């Protein structure tokens, strides 16, 4: 059962049972973005309030498994109130955590530094997911939607 306990850490179950930043924000001013996992039917809707290059508020709704729901809750807690540059860096770091070794091999230059789990805080609880390859998509669902939302926001008129 050790793998299973690695996957379902207490922090993950806690965020699944009591998700943070759950809800909606009025659009506009908030930007709304959806993400789907067509394989399992999971979905996520994210609302983003960005002002002065800071992600001032984030809310999420959606349905999914404990991994996708806990990951979106943990993500919201990690990025809320951060500068867009910090948010981007967190997205990159998390993605690296999920893709692990494969990502570093595919890059041209070698990555000298080990991924510093301390910078991830509670997000590091999701590292057990890597042992269950089919569940990585679950963990990445909200993160991909967040990245897409920020890209859309950056390209939106008036920004």
């Amino acid at each position: 059962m050790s793998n299973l306990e690695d996957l379902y850490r207490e922090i993950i179950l806690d965020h699944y049972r009591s998700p943070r930043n759950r809800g909606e924000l009025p659009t506009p001013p908030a930007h709304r973005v959806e993400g789907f996992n067509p394989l399992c039917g999971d979905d996520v809707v994210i609302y983003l309030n960005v002002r002065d290059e800071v992600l001032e508020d984030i809310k999420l709704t959606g349905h999914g498994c404990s991994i996708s729901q806990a990951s979106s809750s943990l993500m919201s807690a990690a990025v809320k109130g951060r500068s867009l540059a910090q948010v981007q860096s967190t997205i990159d770091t998390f993605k690296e955590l999920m893709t692990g070794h494969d990502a570093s091999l595919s890059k041209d230059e070698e990555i000298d530094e080990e991924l510093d789990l301390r910078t991830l805080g509670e997000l590091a609880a999701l590292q057990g997911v890597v042992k269950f390859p089919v569940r990585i998509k679950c963990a990445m669902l909200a993160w991909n939607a967040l990245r897409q939302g920020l890209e859309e926001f950056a390209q939106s008129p008036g920004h």
Partner: protein
Amino acid sequence: MAPGQRVTSFSARRVRADVPQLTRMVNGHTITYLDTASSSLQPRPVIEAMSRYYELRHANVHRGVYQTANEATEAYEGARARVAGFIRAPGGASEVVFTKNTTESFNLIAKSWGAANLGPGDVVLLSEMEHHANIVPWFQLRETTGIEVRFIPVTDGFRLDLDNLDELLQGVRLLSITGMSNVLGTKNPLKELASAAHSVNALIAVDGAQSVAHGATDVADLELDFLTFSGHKMLGPTGIGVLWTREEILDSMPPFLGGGGMIADVRTDGYTPARGVTRFEAGTPPIAEAVGLNAAVRYLEALGMAAVVAHESELTADALTRLELTFDGRVRVIGPLDTIERGGVISLDVEGVHAHDVAQVLDQFGVCVRPGHHCAKPLMRRFGLTATARASFGPYSLTKDTDVLLEAIEHTLKMFG
């Protein structure tokens, strides 16, 4: 069991002993395979028939004059005849087309018969419990021909709602419907539906992917017009499926895929398609798979479909009762709670736990169930679900599989409780 040897009385234990994969260890446990609705496991006679074919008799079919080429052709055509007998095709082997799977069979119906016979305003009537294989090809046909696609609703009791069938049948040219839902386990009243379709001069196509493996199918008695199914859901190999249709319909259908094998003549100014079933079998067909399917049908016939149904029905009744008694409403069955006109597919909604998490925890006990929408998203939407965890039985299943399933669900509930 050696091929050809008859089993006089059905014994699930004997079937189980015939399936090598059921002795496998997964995560420290002997495998508990409850995903037959996705794909069945193969008994040794099927695997051995395919091995023997590759070891001694392989050649391309329908072309060579040498001995092994003749043997391969005989084996391939023998499979066609065996399948025709299994579904009681009135016209025999000349009504059985080999495809890749049920999905390809439906695409063949839609893109050949549908495109040639249906136009704007014509209605194809489906049901809310269809697999995407019997939905998407019709939506694709709608884009090119302007047909209407209509759905028979499903009741809260997980059965077809046939109260307004007369109204729904207006303008219908084809009723295309599943024999048994891959999510609910519900078996549909095919004879009644065929008669209703014929009363408005419509044809009926049946998705037999589930029903053919879990009950006897007599296309003549049911008065069907099309039947589709897959080898790998009936103890056979992947890569081969079947489309059966009556000879007069088959003769009127234009070719589907073009290429070698499906022609009578090819010139620089055009081609003439072959007649009969070969017109729909372009390219080298799945020969070894046909050999495997032949062995699977022989195996099922030896077991006796009535015995298979009785066994699976007993397992289903036992599982439904114990799920209710053990979990007291915390595990909801998405499907009929009785075993009348119902197969051994049990979709579960576990309170507070997503189907993926259920399946993940069950995997640690060696239990194979399928989480997800089961390629039936309209049905999932109908019941406000995104996913269920589905357990399904085969002729090799035993009540001890249900024991392990219940124990693993108990653990899941504790973990997420």
